[in-house]
């Protein structure tokens, strides 16, 4: 049981390039999330998904796209990379939203992205 895995660990992109950050979970979780963390800041939600085929925007979705074709995978696509997208990206998953308690979100180790 690997939990949440993310690839790559680190990547340098040139301005205008595109890339896909991969995220996979093996816990059969329904909900998945993408966050970014800028230096000295908390995590901000980019996109989330409540199941295969269902995605929605979070707080900072501009410049990103997602898809969820399977329960396990939730890739994040950067189109036309910009220096403002330099950040650490975390993927997370949880079983589902509880009505009386917050299901624990399990985080991947992160992808560090540098856009030059």
């Amino acid at each position, binding site marked *: 049981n690997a939990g*949440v895995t993310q690839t790559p660990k680190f990547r340098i992109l040139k301005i205008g390039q595109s890339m896909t950050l991969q995220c996979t979970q093996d816990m059969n979780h329904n*909900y998945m*999330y993408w*966050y970014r963390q800028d230096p*000295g*800041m*908390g*995590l*901000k*939600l980019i996109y*989330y998904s*409540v199941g295969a085929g269902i995605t*929605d925007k*979070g*707080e900072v979705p501009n410049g990103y796209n997602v898809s969820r074709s399977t329960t396990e995978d939730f890739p994040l696509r950067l189109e036309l990379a910009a220096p403002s997208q330099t950040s650490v990206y*975390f993927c*997370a998953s*949880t079983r*589902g*939203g*509880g*009505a*009386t*308690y*917050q*299901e*624990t*979100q*399990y*985080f*991947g*180790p*992160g992808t560090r992205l540098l856009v030059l």
Partner: protein
Amino acid sequence: DQQVKQNSPSLSVQEGRISILNCDYTNSMFDYFLWYKKYPAEGPTFLISISSIKDKNEDGRFTVFLNKSAKHLSLHIVPSQPGDSAVYFCAASKLVTSYGKLTFGQGTILTVHP
């Protein structure tokens, strides 16, 4: 608009003493609060949580206190250990309507000295 704030960027404590980390929130719709711990080059890991219907929750050395009228919560670690040195994030959610989405504070770097 920072809905969850941790106003202390860092905290330094001696081993064996108490660590108190603070968090304030502005959105009265939040009804569940969590603390996450993060080591360098790793993802955050869940530490402890509290529902808005409670004012205290305890788990071993960790206790979270919630003051709803002040929109304030705090994490107490007693006794502090060097292995507790990490970044601590406060997070909040709206249980029923938010699909588990979390709003995070900026984090507090805790350093516990031997």
